[in-house]
């Protein structure tokens, strides 16, 4: 808990913002105004936030289908994201990408990804670029527990070790891949699987932003020092269904209730900083109000924003195409 006051406020603010954003998207989905489906990050906020507090715009992250939280933590514009999800021309991808393809290269956000396991090679490439240019930047490859089984993950672990790439494999284990439990689908042990490649690997409580922040700090330092990759196995709860329309019957109501009461990163944070007198209750309440207003505003703006011009349907396929 060696975080400065400013950092503490940022951590809480970002986690709260993600939470409100996701729960609002879930609500707006039922309005029918958002196309397709979304995979929401509610419950997992401390992971992206604890990691991203170490990162600047030069550092890059490659994300998953569940990418809103990673994007917000990496500094993507919330209005642009909401407008994108609402499929507006003011969206961060001008309405072409949607929830599963949020990206902002200037912020080092290399994209959410609709392909499970798709991100890790891309993050390795960003890390390679950092290494070759000597920029000192690192890259983060996010994956879920289910995605960790993909061959691309194993290949990326090997490549990252062989080339000593400054990449952090952030494996967010929310216990499920869709309706399938990681306890069944993931053979062996994720930390051991990382370590077997000679990669420093550790398990982290993903409801505790301080724990994530510390582990990520070691990983980022390793990367910046030229010591190569790290794997973090981050244990998180997934509050909502796999996707917005998931009836989520494979989890018992008790299980879902318990996770909200016992594994809430916002509560965990409050319980640490308030008794210790690091922050005041009303500061946090003010943040809650602020992010609620921010998200409200983003929805209002998105609804008011113009829809994409059908004439743009085939633009931006190439930089140039004679």
């Amino acid at each position, binding site marked *: 808990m060696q975080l400065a006051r400013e950092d503490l406020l940022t951590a809480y603010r970002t986690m709260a913002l993600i939470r409100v954003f996701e729960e609002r998207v879930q609500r707006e989905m039922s309005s029918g105004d958002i196309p397709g489906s979304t995979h929401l990050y509610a419950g997992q906020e401390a992971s992206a936030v604890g990691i991203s507090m170490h990162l600047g715009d030069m550092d890059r992250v490659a994300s998953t289908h569940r990418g809103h939280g990673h994007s917000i933590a990496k500094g993507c514009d919330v209005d642009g994201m909401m407008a994108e999800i609402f*499929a507006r021309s003011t969206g961060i991808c001008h309405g072409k990408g949607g929830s599963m393809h949020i990206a902002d290269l200037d912020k080092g956000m290399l994209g959410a990804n609709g392909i499970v396991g798709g991100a890790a090679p891309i993050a390795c490439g960003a890390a390679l670029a950092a290494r070759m240019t000597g920029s000192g930047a690192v890259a983060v490859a996010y994956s879920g527990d289910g995605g960790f089984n993909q061959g691309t993950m194993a290949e990326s672990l090997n490549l990252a070790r062989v080339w000593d790439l400054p990449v952090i494999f952030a494996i967010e284990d929310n216990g499920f891949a869709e309706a399938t439990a990681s306890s069944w689908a993931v053979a062996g042990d994720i930390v051991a699987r990382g370590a077997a490649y000679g990669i420093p690997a550790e398990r982290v409580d993903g409801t505790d932003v301080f724990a994530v922040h510390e582990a990520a700090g070691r990983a980022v330092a390793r990367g910046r020092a030229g010591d190569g990759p790290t794997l973090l196995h981050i244990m998180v709860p997934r509050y909502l269904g796999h996707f917005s329309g998931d009836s989520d019957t494979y989890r018992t109501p008790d299980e879902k209730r318990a996770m909200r009461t016992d594994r809430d990163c916002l509560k965990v944070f409050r319980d640490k900083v308030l008794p210790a007198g690091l922050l005041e209750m009303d500061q946090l309440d003010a943040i809650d109000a602020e992010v609620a207003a921010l998200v409200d505003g983003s929805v209002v703006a998105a609804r008011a924003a113009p829809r994409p011009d059908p004439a743009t349907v085939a633009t931006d396929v190439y930089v140039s195409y004679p």
Partner: protein
Amino acid sequence: MPRKSFRQALNEGLRLEMRRDPRIFVMGEDVAGGKGASGEQDAWGGAFGVTKGLLAEFGPERVRDTPITESAFVGAAAGAAMAGMRPVVEIMFVDFMGVCFDQIFNQAAKFRYMFGGKAVTPMVLRATFGAGTGSASQHSQALYPLFTHIPGLKVVVPSTPYDAKGLLIEAIRDDDPVIFLEHKAMYDDVGDVPDGAYVVPFGEAAVLRDGGDVTIVAFGRMVGRAMEAAARLARDGIEATVVDPRTTSPLDIDTIIETLEETGRLVIVDEAYPRCGMAADIAGIIAEEAFGLLKAPIRKVTPPHAPVPYAPELEAAYIPSVERIEAAVRGVVGWSR
């Protein structure tokens, strides 16, 4: 005849065949759902509910949830098929075939040829395809031209619940690897579907409408749009024949050519990308084999050379519309040198 949805028709086809032959089993991500979880089992029945209920009847050995490792389980299907089983694999979205394409196109598709005719690889690979649900570039592709390109694969694209059931049963009984593609926007479409088992043979096009002015060939969800365009055109006295080849490999080119003997004009409607796509393929075959019958240029109605967009306005501009089909037909009907 009983009315059933695409989804029900497929479920019934699977169920009837699994009852008939114990070597048949299904596998894929969450084809049951709830594996290892404390709550409901068979919670999903696949991402689109097609396999729902099979777990209860056939048990977990024959309804196998898988980890998210498409190469491993698609390759395992090929291996199991060579070893005497008859797997039916679900790859949730055809867009995901990129992570396991080697096992499809270099392994399963080529065993028989490479091994000099000895291997038999009876497997069915089911996947959803298609745009129209706001699912964006990585969850909306058609991609059957890629499979059609590859010798050794058969490729099925049904357009009605009746065909879906009959073609799926045929696919399961077929001894070659079959790619079976289901349009994700059509699962709730309802049609006449008999209760028992029946087959729709591969390589036999359905002629859905007869008209002397033009032949419209369409696949999957585009068949309905072609029929609608034909109905509108008929109001203006333009009579279209509508052909649904139902399988892209093998392709029933003979039926298309037969209709051209009367119509002499061809419009091909397809949801796949245009370059090296199905529309080009059929146009290319006809320009070689039935050139003498053609009275006008062949028109291809396809999306632009672009990925599938997210926003509904863009998607609507992307997918061939009834209006575009109509305009293409009017173009060829009015064409003269």
